């Protein structure tokens, strides 16, 4: 497997910021749209670095960085029409951005105040899915639903290179092919699944997996927002026109760790990172915009300012995110009353009430608090 993605790589913007052409794919964007993409990329990266910092400060339990993958996410996310629906993994911050999910909603998950964060129906984007591959079948099912609703929208489904080994992902390929479902499979091949290099998942390029299931596969430069947009546009159009699924492999590299818990120095070589820095998705668009006169210094400066302001707001918002009420864990286990949950909730509330007045001033008692106090006030022992 070639480090540069090989000759089959669809590219419209070189790492040096040169606009090149491809026989099959193209985009025709106004300067405004191009600047919009640049702004997206910068702001998404700023969300990512801010969240990483917040994790270091103890405000988040974890953060899954997307640095380096912004073009793959923004390019594909911006290709979607409002009626389309996106199924993410846990790292699609750029897609969430494009779907209008507020960054703070992403942070709420990683802070541990919710296992969700937004309304999937409001943004036409499913919640993050942490168990590798599970969402690919949901995506196909949702696309089957569109077929039954005679809705000519399409679904896009994200997953990583590692995920391609999961049975569910391959079953999703089977179902999508058999039902000719309007779904675009979007694989961000960042060449690592935590510490495991691509060779642990496949011996041929991943876009060719589609050959085995009878639908087209294409490999795109995942650091080239224009090429990603073009390729995704084409795949979505095919899906809408009843041609069924496409597999897009976005060849990219995550410049950060797997998550803030990870230490990539144990398995990746520093030289790789340096090489990929030269292919940075933001830098190349900036060079192109500047050289072609489509954006000037003021524009870039304004985006920086906006990013900085957003970061401040995000930081403040994150710190202010309230913990949920303890009993809320019983709220949505079922959508209709369930005897056991109701009785456990009642017990829980009675138990908590027994501590509250004497020892716990806060709205939501910390049950660890009274522990030591048991020694002091415990009656029965």
């Amino acid at each position, binding site marked *: 497997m070639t480090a540069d993605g090989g000759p089959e790589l669809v590219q419209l913007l070189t790492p040096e910021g040169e606009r090149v052409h491809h026989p099959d794919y193209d985009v025709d964007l106004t300067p405004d749209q191009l600047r919009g993409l640049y702004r997206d990329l910068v702001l998404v990266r700023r969300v990512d670095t801010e969240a990483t910092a917040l994790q270091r400060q103890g405000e988040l339990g974890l953060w899954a960085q997307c640095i380096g993958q912004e073009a793959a996410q923004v390019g594909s996310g911006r290709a979607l029409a409002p009626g389309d629906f996106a199924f993410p993994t846990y790292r699609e911050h750029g897609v969430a951005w494009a779907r209008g999910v507020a960054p703070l909603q992403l942070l709420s998950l990683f802070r541990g105040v919710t*296992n969700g964060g937004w309304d999937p129906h409001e943004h036409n984007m499913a919640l993050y899915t942490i*168990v590798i591959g599970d969402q690919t079948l*949901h995506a196909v099912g949702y696309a089957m639903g569109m077929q039954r609703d005679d809705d000519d929208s399409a679904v896009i489904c994200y997953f990583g290179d590692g995920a391609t080994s999961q*049975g569910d992902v391959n079953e999703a390929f089977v179902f999508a092919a058999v039902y000719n479902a309007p779904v675009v499979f979007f694989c961000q091949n960042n060449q690592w699944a935590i510490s495991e290099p691509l060779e642990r998942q496949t011996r041929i390029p991943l876009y060719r997996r589609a050959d085995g299931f009878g639908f087209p596969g294409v490999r795109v430069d995942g650091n080239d927002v224009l090429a990603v947009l073009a390729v995704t546009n084409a795949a979505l159009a095919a899906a809408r026109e009843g041609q069924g699924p496409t597999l897009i492999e976005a060849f990219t590299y995550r410049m950060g760790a797997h998550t803030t818990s990870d230490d990539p120095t144990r398995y990746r070589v520093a030289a790789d990172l340096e090489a990929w820095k030269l292919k940075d998705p933001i830098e190349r668009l900036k060079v192109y915009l500047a050289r072609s006169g489509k954006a000037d210094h003021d524009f870039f400066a304004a985006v920086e300012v906006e990013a900085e302001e957003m970061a401040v707001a995000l930081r403040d918002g994150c710190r202010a995110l309230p913990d949920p009420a303890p009993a809320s864990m019983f709220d949505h286990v079922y959508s209709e009353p369930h005897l056991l949950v109701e009785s456990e909730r009642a017990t829980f509330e009675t138990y908590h009430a027994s501590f509250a007045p004497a020892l716990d001033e806060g709205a939501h008692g910390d049950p660890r608090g009274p522990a030591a106090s048991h020694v002091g006030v415990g009656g029965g022992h």
Partner: protein
Amino acid sequence: MAVTTMAKAINAGLRKALEDDPKVLLMGEDIGKLGGVFRVTDGLQKDFGEARVIDSPLAESGIVGTAVGLAMRGFRPVVEIQFDGFVFPAFDQIVTQVAKHNARSSGRTPMPITIRIPYGGGIGAVEHHSESPEAYFAHTAGLRVISPSNPVDAFAMVRQAIACNDPVVFFEPKRRYWDKADVDLTADIASATSPFEARVVRPGGSVTVACYGPMVRTCLEAATVAAADGTELEVIDLRSLSPLDVPTVAASVRRTGRLVVVHEAPVFLGMGAELAARITEECFYSLEAPVLRVGGYHTPYPPSRLEEDYLPDLDRVLDAVDRALAF
């Protein structure tokens, strides 16, 4: 009223659900032209079309996983797992996604999915076709688990399961598919008992016997035999395993002082364990004997020539009743 087998009653229930709500879909292996290996979906694809009665690829995780997506899109998928032993490839999707979506999304993407599973033994089948895996699902928060024991309940409960906004694992006692009863096929579910409540199917004062699915008939037969000996069993058809209708059982045990729980599934960590623990806690001072359990052994389901030795039968129920009375 029509004399109807349980299989046909479920078929009629599915048909009504398909008629009443265009969002109801059926999915599974061989449910179309074949009508399912037990013919429970017979004729439905013909009448409702391939878009609503869907023959799926041979992949249980795929079936349940796509049902999740369809539910997010507003459909009410009814999934058939061909046999009990084939539900495990779908276990991740069921436990990780179906069960947890409503909580994860704070109620925004409920999962009104019904997972139909023919279960239990007694039909002389090869391995994996006779298991009783209900405890795995009842242990899982977010799922509801119910099982009818007779055609009348089956007709109502399958529609109630489909109408429920929560995921329901619907265990069909396959060896009772051919049991017959008078079923009012015009009955409305609005007037039916909640499927999440137990029912006293035979009152009696000596010993309470709690059971469900295939074992209800066995326990009723045991009650007849016991009555001839002067022992009056109060037989409770639990009907629902999650939630478990503990109040109904507790009320009975407070009168009888004795409880025997019967199921085909292995005793160890089976439903009887939970019922025993709870009833003992709630009725501690009423119990004159420990709750006794009759069920499968801690072995894989044996080859069919041994299944009569494995499955609880009338004698084993009565033996446990004797033991409870002997305390």
